[in-house]
Structure formats: C-alpha cells, structure tokens
C-alpha cells in the first residue's frame, strides 16, 4: 500500500549548508496495519510524511501510495490518502459541518453519498453538538475531531497521522488513538508518526526508529526487543540513538 524507497530530502540552510532532512529512508506498510515512525523532534518524520502526502517533493528516491507515484501522480495519491498532522488546522471562520463538507466535495463525492457519510461520521465521532460551531470557538479536542472527520470523509484506503496527538490532553489523545485503532481494524493502511514511546507501543503493529533522517531499526515491537535485548522500548530507543551519535562523532 505504501512503499518508500531511498527517500532523500535536502534543504538549503544558511547556517548548516545543505541540510539533509531525510537520508535514504525506505519502508513499506500494508493494509490493516499501523506502521509507526518513532523518533525525536527533527528526526525527519514530518518531512517523510509530507512527501507521502505530496505536499513536498523528495530530492531523490521515490514513493508510491496505493500504486500511485508521489512525484508524478500527486493528484491520484491525494485522492487516496487522508492526511492529518499537527500542522493541518481547521478553518476559524467555518463550522465543523461546512469544513467536512468542503473537503468531501473536493474529494469529488456526490452530494447524497456525502451527506450520508457525514451523518455517520458526526455520529460516530460524537460531533453532533459542534456541528454549527465555528472553528475559532472550538476547543483543541473538538478541532481534532473535525480534523479526523475531514481526513476520513472520503473513506481513503491509506491514512497518514503526523504527530497527531501533540498538544492534546490525555483524554482527547486516548480517544484519538482508539479511533486510529478502529480504522486499522477496518482494513486501512496507516502510517503514524510520534515521539511518544507509549503511543507507539500501544498502537503500532510495526515500527521504525528514525534519527537524523535514517532508520536505525525496524520491525515489530517483539522483534526489536529480541534483536536489541531490551525489554523496554524507551531504553531501546535511547541506546540506538546514543550508539548512532557516538558513531557519528567518531567518524
């Protein structure tokens, strides 16, 4: 469903010169699984997911989503994904209903089908009470619900969540994780990036630990624990990153 091959992204940076945000990142994710990208801030998770959602273009390498190439067929890719990140806000001067409807229509949904789908979503995400509330007046949790509804209104086969829980309180974050798990159970292919170990542990079927644009380790949680001889994911994470930094320092 998702296939990233040797993705590289370099930015021009005045201070650091050429800054390599992604350095040959490869991974794949299938339907019915949650693939986690776990890494500290600035590891390159957002860049990778922005490339998958066609908002950015890779400097080299390629990626396909549902069989469509992210660089040459960006329109098709965007039709088949739902993208949600800490940066995808809701419109202040639009109500929840208007916002979801607007995106549903951009996805080319028929009016009747859209209405049906929206009623269902608003019911399931318990959003009926904020239906006519303007974005500016919503709490963070409400906004998050609208964002989810916006991302899944067209029932895409692939979903990308980029640090979706950042800034949420425990209750709202828990609700969001439950929704993501539900979506996986419906057979969606999900990529989920986070820097919070617990979330990754709880949610991801497989995960990759990313640091400085590279994947340090990849596999199911069990595999990772066995391979690196650490029970606790947090210890494992620290070890990997420290090793990487020491190697980098020696070179």
């Amino acid at each position, binding site marked *: 469903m998702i296939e990233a091959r040797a993705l590289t992204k370099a930015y*021009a*940076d*005045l*201070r650091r*010169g*050429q800054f390599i945000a992604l350095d040959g990142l490869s991974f794949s994710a299938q339907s019915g699984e949650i693939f986690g990208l776990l890494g500290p801030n600035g590891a390159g998770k957002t860049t990778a997911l*922005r490339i998958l*959602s*066609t*908002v*950015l*273009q890779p400097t080299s390498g390629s990626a396909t989503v549902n069989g469509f190439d992210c*660089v*040459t*067929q960006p*329109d*098709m890719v*965007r*039709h088949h*994904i739902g*993208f949600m*990140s800490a*940066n*995808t*806000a*809701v*419109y*202040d*001067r*639009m109500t929840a209903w*208007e916002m979801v409807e*607007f*995106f549903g*229509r*951009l*996805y*080319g949904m028929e009016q009747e089908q859209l209405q049906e789908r929206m009623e269902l979503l608003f019911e399931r995400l318990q959003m009926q009470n904020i239906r006519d509330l*303007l974005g500016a007046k919503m709490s963070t949790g409400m906004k998050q619900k609208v*964002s989810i509804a*916006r991302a899944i209104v067209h029932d895409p086969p692939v979903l990308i969540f980029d640090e979706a829980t950042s800034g949420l309180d425990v209750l709202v974050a828990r609700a969001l994780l439950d929704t993501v798990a539900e979506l996986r159970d419906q057979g969606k292919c999900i990529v989920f990036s986070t820097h919070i170990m617990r979330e990754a542990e709880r949610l991801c079927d497989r995960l990759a630990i990313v640091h400085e644009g590279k994947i340090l380790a990849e596999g199911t949680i069990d595999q990772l624990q066995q391979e690196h001889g650490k029970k606790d994911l947090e210890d494992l994470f620290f070890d990997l990153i420290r090793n990487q930094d020491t190697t980098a320092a020696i070179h």
Partner: protein
Amino acid sequence: MNWNNVKLIFAREMRDQLRDRRTLILIAVVPLLLYPLMGMSIFQLSQFLRHEAAKVQVVGAEELEGHAWLPPLLDGEQFQPILFDNPNERKNLALRGATQKAVDGAEHAEHDPPVGSKTSLEAARKLLAEGDVQVVLYFPEGFGKRLELVRQSLLNRAEPSATPDATELPEPQMFFNSANEKSRIAQLRVERVLRLWRTGVMQTNLRDGNVPLNAARPFELKPQDVAKKRQRHAAVWSKILPFLLFVWALTGAFYPAVDVCAGEKERGTLETLLASPAQRKEIAWGKLLTIMTFSIVTALMNLGSLGVTGKIVLEQLSKVSAFAGQDALSLPPLESLVWLAIALVPVAALFSALCLAFAAFARSTKEGQYYLMPLLVIIMPLMFLTMSPGIELNLGNSLIPITGLVLLLRSAIEGQYMQALPFVLPVVGVTLICCLLAIRWAEEQFNRESVLFRESERLDLGRWFVHLVRDRGNTPTLVQGVLCVAMILIVQFFINLALSARSSGQLDFSFLAQTVFISQVVCIALPAGLMTLLFTRQPRKTLMLDRWPKFSHLAVAALLAIFIFPLGAQFSQWVQQLYPFTPEVSAQVTAFSETMAQSPRWWLPYLLMAVLPAVCEEIAFRGFILSGFRHMGHKWWAIGFSAVAFGMAHFFLQQKISAAALGMVIGLLAVQTGSLVPCMLFHALYNGLTLATGDLAGQFKEDALANSFWEMFLVADGSGMFQTWVLVVCLLGAGVLLGWLHRLPYLPTDEERLQEVRERQLAGA
C-alpha cells in the same frame, strides 16, 4: 484543471472573507461612511468659506469724488456690482475706508486714521503687513486731477496745447502680500475690478468726446470654446476617475490577498488544503477569483458611494455662491461609468494576480502588509505617467501596461471613440499578456516549496554569501540567474554614467573602442563569469562549453544568421517607425557609426562590434542566465525570459525590442544544440552582417553602387533594407531551419523532465 474545485475554493474563500469583520469594514463600511463624512466636511467648509470676504483698505477715496462724469467705482462697503463678471463675486471683496462714515466711526478710530494723508497710507500698509487687510488700494493726491486732465485732452483735442500734460500726475497703487494666498487672490480680483472700471472711464470719455468707441478698441477677442458642456465635464473626470478607480481596485485586492495567502499560512490551514485533492493551480485560481471579486466590489462600492455623496454635496455647493457657475463641479457623464466598469475587470485581474503572488510569498499577515509598498512603487508610476501634461494615446504609449489602459479609458470617457479605436487591440493585448504573466507567476508561487514552507531565518548577508558559494549546485539557480541580470544592469548603469562623464563631447575612435570594450567585458562578461566561477560547481556545463558542437549545428547556426538577418533588419525598421528615435538619439547613433568608420583597420569594427559581443553577451545571457532560468521547468519560459533580459541590457528602447526578438532565436539555438558555440557563431555573423550592410548602405547613399550587383538584394535608397524577394526567401529559409532545430532532441533539465512526465500523465488521465 478541475473548475469544480476552483468553484468550491472560491465559494469557501468568499464565505470566509465575508465572515471576517476587517474585510467587511474595508469593502463596505469604509466607502459607505468615508465619502458621506468627507462630503459633510466639505460642506461645512464651504459654509465657512461663504463668510470669508477679503478686506480691501481704500486710501484716498475722496480723489474720486466731485467728478460727476466719472463712472462710480465704490458703492458703500463694496465695489460697484457692474464691475463684476459674475455679480455673486461682489461680496468676496469688502472695502474699508471707502466712505467717510467708516472713517468717522468710533470703533474704527484706532485702526483707520483719517484718509487722504500720507500717514494714512503708512497705517494702511501696516494693517496689510499685520494681515488685517489683504489689499491696500491707494489713490494718491492728484489722481482726480489726472483723470480730469486726461478727459480734457480728449475733449479739447482740436487745440492740444490748451491742456497740460497729465502723465506727470500720480497713478493709483495697489499693495498686496504675495506670500499670503488670500492676499494674492484678493489682489487678482481687485485688479480685475479696476481694469473694468478703467474701461468704463475710457468709454465715458470717448463718448463725451464724440469719438466712436471702437476707435480705442478696433476689435473684440472672444475665445469660443467648442467643447460641449458634456465634454468639459468629461475632460475633468477622465483624468481623475480612472486613477481613483484603479487605486481602489489595488487596495481592494491587497488586503484580502494577504488574508487568503499569508493568513492561511499563519493559521496553519494551508497544509490542510495542500494535502487535499485540489491541485496547486486550482487553489491559486480559487484564491485569485476571490481577490478579484473583492477588488471589483471595493472599486464599485467606492465609486457608487462617491457618486451618491458627490451628487448631494455638489447640489448643495452649487447653491453656495462661492462655487456657483463653476463647470468642473458636476457629476461625470453616465457613459464614462460604463467604460470604467469594463476596464475594471482586466485591471482587477492584473492587480489581484500581482497581490496574490506577493502575498503567497509572505510568511505572515504582518509580513504581507509590508509588500504593499513595493507593489505601489511598481504600479503608481504607471498611473502617474498618464497625469503628466501632453501625454496622449498613441501606439507607443498604448503598449505600456496600465498606462495604455488608463489613456484608452480617458479617450473613451471623453467620447473620442474614433481616435481610440485603433489602440483597442494593442491595449487589450498588452493588458491580457500582463494578466497572464501575473497569474502564471502567482501559480508558480504555489508550486514552490521554498515559498510555501518558508521559515524565518536571521538575515545575515555574510552567511548567505558563504552559503551561496559553499552549497553551490552544478548550474546556477533561477534566483542566481535573476541576480546576474540585475548585476549586469546595475554595473552597466554606473559604468555608463562614468563613461559619459569622461567623454569630452568630441568622439574619437580610441575612446569609442575603449567604451565598447568596457561595456562588453566589464559590464557583461565579468559579472556573469565571476558568478559562474563562484556559484556553480560545473562552470563549463553552466556556460554550455562542456562539449564540442556538431558540425551540422554550426552550419545551421551560420545559415540561420544569414536568413534571419534581413528579417531582423526589417523588424528593426518597423520598431523604429513605431517608436521613432528622438533627434538627440539619432545624432548619437550617427556620431557613433561615423566614429566607427574612422577605424585605422577595416577589421577592428568587426572585432569590437561582432566578435566581442558574440563572446561576452553569449557567456552572460545564453550561458549563465539561461542555465539558471532553465530550472523553471519550462523551456520556452526560460528562453523568453533570457531574451527579455538580453533586450534590457541594450541601450535604446528600439534596440531593446529588436534584441529581445533576436534573443528568442539564439535562446532556442542554445537549448536545442546544447552548446554555446553555435550561439556565438550566430551572434558574430549577425552583427557582422549588420556592419557590412551599413557600409553598403553608405555607399548607396553616395551613389557608388548604382546599377551594381548589390541592387539585386538591397533597396537602393541607402536605408540598408532588403528587396521583398530576399525577405520572402529568408522567411522560408529561417522557418525551415527553426523547424529543424525545434525537432532536434535536446537535453532537458531535471525540472523540465519532471514537468514533461506530469504533463504526459495528465494527458493520459
């Protein structure tokens, strides 16, 4: 492009803007309140003006008394009503000291000393200096006698010696203060009154002396204004209205543009939209249409509100005497509003696209607001140009963006449809091209990651320069290409200033040779060469000198130069007919070619004017600059922009246009052959042919070539133009060669390749 998506985005943006209080205030509340408020204050001011009469201190009024025949000048505290063209103006001048009563009055005793004496004149001048009166009108002692003597000399003209000479006697004097606006105006009014009175005195004398009145005035001069009242109104409005309307259209576009682009970035919804199926182009168009709607509505609301307020205020003002009878103060004719509305659409489109592009670049609304200034700096001079006296609609002016449109609009408002008709096509064409370019630019902004995801970085010039050199690419970037153009133009400007300061006025060959050498090597080759070495990793690839050209490419370049040359010469002549050289430029051009002819060796001009530019200009324009521009991803845009840059580097407007056209051909040659050598060959040959034909044309002028072999090719009038059959053959030949070139497989840049793949897939889908 999916227009459904554009419509959706447009509808969303419109709703969003209408829910925004700031926008509503700008487009609805401001015009609805602003003009009534302004009207009110003008009205208040006019009521204030009504009571403001200028004070005129009369000294020596008694000199006018005791002459029964004398037409009266003073009438109580005012001048005689008959002495005004418009009797309503009479109350603008209030007299003091005109009657004995005023002098005797207790309240004036302090200010107005007894009239008729020397001291009273000094007192009056003191009042003037203090600003208590605006004009002092002084009839010195003896002025009455002067009037009498003048009259006597006319009545007794049979015996001239009987009347003493009157010229020795004093004349009236008027004092005013030119540093004071009110005093200056009052002086003009009093002067006019006195002139009329003088005419009255003269006429009375003539009548009493039995001389026909027309003896002193053999004819009357009455200028007749052929403009109809409607046209007079139109002439005033045609200058003001387009200007006002376009300023409103610009401000109406700017603020929504900042909100829908920079505002969206700031609020974090841009990424939401970018990840949706809407293409960047659709997003840009949806936003563009929103901005355009606001631009148009703002302009119309302002116009409407101004119209309604204006009508009410003008009606009131016309009742106020100070403004009565003035033609300019009336509403514009209705047709003019129709023309304004028609012109508003393309102007709004152009401004909206420009605003969109600027606003898309801004990171935040605050940064966006700063971009209004550069936008105004670009647009305002184009509008002010039309205000300069004497500028009128002609083909040259009609080709200047915005200026042409404003001038056309002015002609339409003035009702000169037949004069305006020939220029409709060029104006509409230029406006549409500008619109398309601006829209294209705005679209481009939405395709650039560096614009959409700009992060704030501390401005550090040193660090930036280090970054440019350290992180240089194989070939220059687009921005570096633009920078090179700017660099060349700036260096050229200052070197030209320095050279013209050095020239002694008399040109000689060695000075000219130095000038040409400096302007080619220092102004053009040096900046481009330095930038190539500093900013690129592969200088030879950048300058397209990394591989030796094929022989066939060289042959085609040489043939193409021969075929294109006569066409180019013809084109240059058309350009010169369209924009004739001014006499000064003509003189300069002649002096230049005459000095060139003084060359000590025949081949020196060819080296200086053909070989040197071919090397230097090609290194810059087809080398560094075109390499940079090709990162745009569109071959033709890159060729076009490099051609425009090539044109701009030339000296006179006429050369600029011809050079830009030629730049298109050389640009194509560069891209298709992938080598700079054919371009240099073409350029050198073309310039060499220009010099050679110039020589031949000179010989024709001296009749040295009459009936020779050359007459088959060249027109014998010495203009250097070719016979029609030559032009036709060359057109065909050039067409074939360009077609062949166009079919050559060329080496696309990464950006161009990506664009091609995308276009293929879009066509496939």
